[in-house]
């Protein structure tokens, strides 16, 4: 089942853990906060996406089954 990423930008404090774990999925904006992520994730990047979400200490990244 494919997954979907929901960003809660208000919770992001710019720790950059998500891009560390999942450089191919998450992008920071020019200020260093979570900027973007693809809405639907290609199968080969699913593991990365989940690891990146799990690494975010602020729980700013939510993964749902779509």
């Amino acid at each position, binding site marked *: 089942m494919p997954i979907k990423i929901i960003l809660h930008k208000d919770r992001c404090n710019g*720790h950059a853990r998500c891009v560390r774990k999942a*450089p191919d999925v998450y992008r920071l904006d020019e200020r*260093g906060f979570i900027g973007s992520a693809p809405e639907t994730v290609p199968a080969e990047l699913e593991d990365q996406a989940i690891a990146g979400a799990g690494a975010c*200490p602020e729980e700013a990244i939510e993964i749902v089954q779509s």
Partner: protein
Amino acid sequence: MEQKNPGAVSSPACPFSAETQEKILHHFDHHSSLYRDHSAEALKLLRDQAPVAKTDAHGGFYVLTRYQDVLEAARDDERFCSFWGITIPTNKAPWDRAQTIPIDLDPPYNELFRDMMLPLFTPKAIDAYGVFLRQTATKLVDAFIEKGEADLARDFGSPLTALFTMELAGIDHAQADFYASTIQYGIAHPGDPDALARMAEARGRVSREVAAQKDNPRSGGLIDYLFKARVGGRPLMDWEIEAIVWLVLLGGVDSTQATISNMAVHLSDHPELKQRLIEHPDSWDDAVEEYLRLVTPQQGLSRTVTRETSLGGVELQRGDRVLMSWQAANLDESVFPNPNEIVLDRKNKRHLAFGIGKHRCMGSNIGRLEVLIALEQLLTRIPDFKVKAGEAELSADIGTVKAYKKVPITFTPGKRSA
């Protein structure tokens, strides 16, 4: 798990007499020798019996020992503010200006400074620091690898993190030892007049450093960056620059070397774990994360209650002070099963060693990288290192930062890298 070094975390089955239990439950003092020698057990007793405990030590405060309560307080700057000082006891009055920025400020002011500083801590910036760190770590090990013995605190963890902090701040490397030894002593002897005098001297040196660099900046360093930066549309004042540099020195030269020394002592006491790590470099990142959780170098910080509220079922009044024990939160077994073990494949990595929320450590990814590079050097270059029996010496006071003052080791001599 056997306990070989005082203060090493081991399985806490309540070892206290009724009298000692009473002392912990009603007179808890994180600066006491009781805490230094039995921190994990004392925090467990509190969490099990009085998770928001009132103590009369240091003028009175509440100790938070459950993960959920620590999280709730740290995330709510409106109810739990930083401006009255973030240590217990505090030497900051509300009318004093911030001594360290952004940590002493509350939103939105801390956020203005934090936003301005974030570019220094991007993954790209940190990768560049990795080059300096690896070279420095390699040279430090070169200096003792032929001897077969060393003090990992004095010869490795402390100079590695101090030299790097100088590099980051843009201060002459020759100052590394002065700042590291002074700050480590100051944090391990809170309230001691001699320690306060030495800290004041170091703080004075920061003012002179900033003044000197005004005419002659060291390009690429933090100080130079701060000269050019703006907050709220204006340049920074000199005292603000000094307060930021002072915080980076405090954060840079103590907590990270503390993590390295704690990790080394634990690895020496757990040869099977060490062997497993030697064979599996792909689990070093997980090991660093677990060591941060298990020993939580910065043990806990405080906040001041801004209005009547309740936390964990306890009523709090305006002006009450709370100690958020990151260490206790990180050993909360309802969140981290087998809390006293290093579990490399632990799924939950949301430990609170770097705090959480708007003040969460800005140096967290740098700190991690420093500890990882230290682990890499230990496991690849002196893999059979062993702490000399009974000779690892914990700091006099671990209430703020849990560190070993001395970690004397022996190992099979090896070759210098070049």
